[in-house]
């Protein structure tokens, strides 16, 4: 035992550093050591005593146990009259409000079952008990509880639906769809769709039991401070999501609410995978009743415009998700539908095809007609004015709607998709060769996205087509992808396909492909590659929208209120007859989400427009549980629908009584099944790092945009737009970009691993965009967690220390993960170089990014960095607060802590921050926080700060 050695130089290199004592002890009991008076020096008695120990028989419990664990028994021995009743213990309510006013007191005013810790949900039929341990989230549909199943010794997520007919019915649809997907289409659980385990009714609540998953992709991005994930991760997730989407398409199911929040990590398997959850809005492709679907950022143009939709809307959402995974920010963070469309048009450089605009019910809201509507069927959308429609300007919109459209912040100001992707900052430390490779993949990504966020639903790639893309397959990307023919699927209804846009390949549509190497491509696109749905001009759907039955007030959208809570929409179904639904009234709601970093989606209630729909033949809604969708087709009405007989959507006879998607909005989808737990980042040192990444710290809020280098980008970007006629070929641009990047990054690649983040501390290098390279010095694509590193670096900055945190500890399963670099003190080198700046100075609006930064900086400026907890907390809704609360503003005693923590004491007791022992142990267990690993699993971010107690008085 070394004694009090305040400056123990050796400590960092050896053994476990307790972070205890030495220097700080000097202030208190300096040098106090117990003398050997009553005590004797400790002598390790060795093996013999150990043996004797094993022989020791515990005859009786210690008094300690008898007055704690067994105190009731003890008291009963002392006094046979003693009575204790566990039943009388105060209950910790998980449901709010917790006052029982409905359903004999079991439900609160919102018709939610009032849950307490250890409440038991019982499936009486199977005699299975679900012990409620926590609430994972809640929404309009009800609540999601984390439950313990002792039979299986495992946790599950149970969705407890509100005790109201509409929610109940809608949940049955979800059950039916998931059952079908699970059992019929994916019996082996290979398609990345959440598994449904069980469902039952308890206390008049439908309870649906799902596998418990981990954090969602939005939370994951958030953990990364809204910086994008590595391309290999994006690719991995894309492939998996596509698997799921392919299954959905095969089953003829539209998810209708695909977004990062509804894609959850599943870390119980290795390697980690993602799964699609929340089929509460899903519908059969042939029963697309609701027109107000999809979360705004991920809403497809056809839904926005009120056009008929297909599974292709999920592909649009998927494209948005892929882009967001890469960028860390939503591609189209529209603050309103107008803003959304505006962003699409600006970023994609095109607009929805005329055939859509001609028939979509909301066209007039966003477009003005500048040509003859009768314009030929083959009118090509383009930016050259040939379209008959022109998007309204803000002023025009205001004039029409009598209100200003909400316009959100610009994150990728005036850039088209190509520029956004190409100019997105690189992860630092990307070696030169990798930059070349990265650039190639980025080009593939652009091509990939172009096929997904394609205005024309008929041209948008199917899951199958997308899954063959080089970006997904990992094949070298050499030329624009030409998707294979989609195998024509002829399900229930199949209409003849007509391509409205001969010559309109997606490159063209995007205004991108002036120099298509392959001359035949356009025709391929137009005639062969797409499963063209025939959309007769002025067909049914258009009439749907415009014919008021669905939407009188266009502005409000004909939402079915999926996001509104307590919008008075009740769909009553008669389980027996095909009564269909009666929409007694509904509040059309819209989500607000002004900025991606404040993505709490505020629910906005708009005045409900009551409508009475008396659907003729109820169909899908009456799905018996567990039945496969195909059983339910009343093909007649349904065929007609897709065959577009306008009459069907007439005000008097909506052909379908359906309710999918409807009332079960999920405001809190964010929280879905498992917001916390085992997502290894949380609580791990690495996670912390995320929080404190030097990148953010280093940045100065007023970073300016550098003109130089930008010019290049700027100048090139217009050419993209004009690319239809421009001579610059795709390839040329690609090459150019490569070259540019190459030279740009020469300097940084020189600096290599060791100097990495350094640039950031240099104000000059402030980026307006999150730079993925900034948070992971040794960015390694193998696993996601690496996204979260930069551990040491934050510490270094934070504590002004340069410690090698687990620099030599390989994270199991993650390959290289060297923190040494990040821990090294900031020495800015490369970013100073002009060329490097160039890329970071992409023309863009810096303010949003700064906001984000500012947020981080604020939190970082707090003196008390309970680092680990911060991290843990980040995925947790309550965490941060509580930590900070605990951390700050404490008057007396704890100020000492604060100082110590903030100042990086030399060593020993006083030294703050996670020390090597922990880190090392973490690093060993750092596999995504999988449950098998005790240390990590113990780190429930949730556990760190959660609402786990309640005031009684």
């Amino acid at each position: 035992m070394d004694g009090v050695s305040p400056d123990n130089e050796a400590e960092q290199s050896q053994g476990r550093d307790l972070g205890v004592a030495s220097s700080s002890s000097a202030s208190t009991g300096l040098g106090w050591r117990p003398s050997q008076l009553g005590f004797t020096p400790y002598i390790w008695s060795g093996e013999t005593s150990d043996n004797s120990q094993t022989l020791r028989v515990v005859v009786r419990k210690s008094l300690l146990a008898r007055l704690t664990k067994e105190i009731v028994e003890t008291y009963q021995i002392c006094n046979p009259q003693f009575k204790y009743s566990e039943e009388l213990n105060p209950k910790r309510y998980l449901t709010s409000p917790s006052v029982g006013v409905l359903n004999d007191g079991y439900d609160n005013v919102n018709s939610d079952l009032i849950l307490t810790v250890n409440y038991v949900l019982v499936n009486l039929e199977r005699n299975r008990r679900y012990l409620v341990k926590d609430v994972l989230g809640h929404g309009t549909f009800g609540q999601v509880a984390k439950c313990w199943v002792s039979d299986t010794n495992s946790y599950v997520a149970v969705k407890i639906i509100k005790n109201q007919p509409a929610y109940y019915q809608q949940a049955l649809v979800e059950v039916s769809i998931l059952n079908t997907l699970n059992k019929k289409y994916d019996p082996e659980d290979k398609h990345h769709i959440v598994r449904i385990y069980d469902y039952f009714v308890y206390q008049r609540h439908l309870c649906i039991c799902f596998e418990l998953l981990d954090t969602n992709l939005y939370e994951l991005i958030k953990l990364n401070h809204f910086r994008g994930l590595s391309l290999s991760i994006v690719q991995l997730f894309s492939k998996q999501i596509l698997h799921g989407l392919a299954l959905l398409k095969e089953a003829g199911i539209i998810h209708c609410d695909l977004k990062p929040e509804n894609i959850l990590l599943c870390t119980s398997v290795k390697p980690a995978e993602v799964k699609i959850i929340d089929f509460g809005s899903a519908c059969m492709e042939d029963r697309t009743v609701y027109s107000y679907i999809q979360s705004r950022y991920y809403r497809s143009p056809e839904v926005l415009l009120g056009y008929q939709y297909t599974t292709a809307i999920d592909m649009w959402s998927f494209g948005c998700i892929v882009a967001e995974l890469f960028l860390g920010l939503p591609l189209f963070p529209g603050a309103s539908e107008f803003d959304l469309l505006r962003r699409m048009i600006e970023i994609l450089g095109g607009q929805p095809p005329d055939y859509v605009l001609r028939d979509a019910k909301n066209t007039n809201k966003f477009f003005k007609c500048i040509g003859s509507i009768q314009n030929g069927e083959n009118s090509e959308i383009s930016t050259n004015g040939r379209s008959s429609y022109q998007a309204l300007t803000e002023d025009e919109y205001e004039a029409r709607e009598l209100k200003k459209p909400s316009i959100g912040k610009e994150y990728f100001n005036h850039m088209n998709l190509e520029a956004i992707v190409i100019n997105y900052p690189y992860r630092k430390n990307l070696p030169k060769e990798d930059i070349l490779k990265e650039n190639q993949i980025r080009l593939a990504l652009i091509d990939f996205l172009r096929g997904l966020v394609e205005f024309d639903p008929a041209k948008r790639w199917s899951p199958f087509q997308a899954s063959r893309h080089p970006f997904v397959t990992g094949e070298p990307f050499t030329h624009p992808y030409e998707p294979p023919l989609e195998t024509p699927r002829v399900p229930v209804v199949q209409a003849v396909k007509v391509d409205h846009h001969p010559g309109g390949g997606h490159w063209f549509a995007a205004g991108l492909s002036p120099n298509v190497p392959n001359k035949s491509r356009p025709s391929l696109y137009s005639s062969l590659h797409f499963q063209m749905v025939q959309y007769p001009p002025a067909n049914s759907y258009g009439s749907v929208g415009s014919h008021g039955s669905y939407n009188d007030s266009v502005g409000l959208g004909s939402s079915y209120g999926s996001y509104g809570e307590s919008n008075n929409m009740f769909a009553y179904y008669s389980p027996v007859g095909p009564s269909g639904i009666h929409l007694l009234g509904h509040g059309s709601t819209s989500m607000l989400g002004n900025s991606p970093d404040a993505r709490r989606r505020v629910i906005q209630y708009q005045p409900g427009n009551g409508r009475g729909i008396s659907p003729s033949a109820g169909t899908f809604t009456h799905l018996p549980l567990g039945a496969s969708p195909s059983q339910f087709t009343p093909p007649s009405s349904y065929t007609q629908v897709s065959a577009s007989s306008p009459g069907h959507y007439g005000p008097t006879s909506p052909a379908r009584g359906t309710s999918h998607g409807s009332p079960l909005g999920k405001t809190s989808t964010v929280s879905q099944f498992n917001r916390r737990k085992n997502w290894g980042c949380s609580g791990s040192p690495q996670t912390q790092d995320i929080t404190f990444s030097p990148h953010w710290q280093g940045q100065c809020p007023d970073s300016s945009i550098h003109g130089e280098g930008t010019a290049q980008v700027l100048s090139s970007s217009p050419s993209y737009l004009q690319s239809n006629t421009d001579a610059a070929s795709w390839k040329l641009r690609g090459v150019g970009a490569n070259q540019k990047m190459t030279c740009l990054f020469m300097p940084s690649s020189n600096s290599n691993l060791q100097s990495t983040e350094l640039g950031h501390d240099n104000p000059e290098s402030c980026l307006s965009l999150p730079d993925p390279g900034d948070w992971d010095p040794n960015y390694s694509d193998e696993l996601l967690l690496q996204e979260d590193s930069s551990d040491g670096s934050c510490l270094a900055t934070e504590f002004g220390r340069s410690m090698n945190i687990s620099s030599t500890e390989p994270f199991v399963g993650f390959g290289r993960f060297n923190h040494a670099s990040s821990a090294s003190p900031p020495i800015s080198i490369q970013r100073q170089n002009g060329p490097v700046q160039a890329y970071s100075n992409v023309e863009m609006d810096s303010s949003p990014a700064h906001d984000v930064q500012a947020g981080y900086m604020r939190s970082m400026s707090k003196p008390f960095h309970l680092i680990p907890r911060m991290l843990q907390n980040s995925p947790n809704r309550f965490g941060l607060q509580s930590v900070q609360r605990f951390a700050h503003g404490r008057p007396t005693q704890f100020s000492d802590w604060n100082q110590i923590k903030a100042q990086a004491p030399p060593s020993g007791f006083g030294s703050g921050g996670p020390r090597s022992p922990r880190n090392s142990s973490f690093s060993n267990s750092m596999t995504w926080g999988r449950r098998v690993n005790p240390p990590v699993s113990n780190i429930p971010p949730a556990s760190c700060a959660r609402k786990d107690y309640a005031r009684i008085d």
Partner: protein
Amino acid sequence: MDNSTQESRLRSEHSVTYDSPHPIYAMAFSSTPSLASPLQRIAVGSFIEDYNNRVDIISFNADSSSVRHQPSLSFDHPYPPTKLMFQPNAHSSLRKSSSDLLATSGDYLRLWEVRENSVDAISLLNNSKTSEFCAPLTSFDWNDIEPKRIGTSSIDTTCTIWDIEKGVVETQLIAHDKEVYDIAWGEARVFASVSADGSVRIFDLRDKEHSTIIYESPQPDTPLLRLAWNKQDLRYMATILMDSNKIVILDIRSPTMPVAELERHRACVNAIAWAPQSSRHICSAGDDSQALIWELPTVAGPNGIDPISMYSAGSEINQLQWSAAQPDWIAIAFANKMQLLKV
């Protein structure tokens, strides 16, 4: 040992034993020896399997290394007290000259005034709504910054914060999902608790909606029985698991991962106490009849941490207290004996 006689003499000088007629569990030092004399009071609670238990007041003279039982100060206590504690700071308005306030926990929290020659029951603090049932208190802690504040832990999963001056409940928190076994104050409004649910949680009375879990036992629901918050350095706490020979040292800045685990006891640990005068020292005692004093090193060797000194008692040690007023003295309780050991 070269001189056994000398050693025994030394040992006797540095240890004092008090024999009680009953098995001893709870034990407490008074906060300050009275100015007039070197006498310090020690309260000792019996563990008798009967409704009627006893609390004895012993006066301890550190100068002469002697103890004296004061029969006039003994009083009856229902059930074995789970904890005894003298009021930590003497300058409270509650303290009258030459008298000490003593709190005891069991079926309820009780306050007693220990005078020169008598003990008076001052109050019984009961938060139960029913008289028929009772949820015993497993422990309590007296806030030494805000001496009117006592927090109790109960098997009904709650912690109750009392304002003992007013005799009212300041707040009651459902602190855990299972029985709460111990509670410790960190500062005026911050306390921590341990529970049968296996977690250590920190609470701040300024935000009663949240707590912070800083440790969970590796096996789910392995009860944590005792908690000691290092008053010299509030970043550190220690806890013990049921039926475990380990003392888990926690750094509240790094939740969930103990900074150290002290594993030299050869049977389960029953009590822990941080040194009042040093942030690096902690004493522990357990069923292996040993009391160990540990010095937390800056760096732990590969084989774990060894204690720096030890004491072997005659049987399982059930209780351990480190005198804040006279930090050279540690009291342990085993069987019917209380023993004071000089360190």
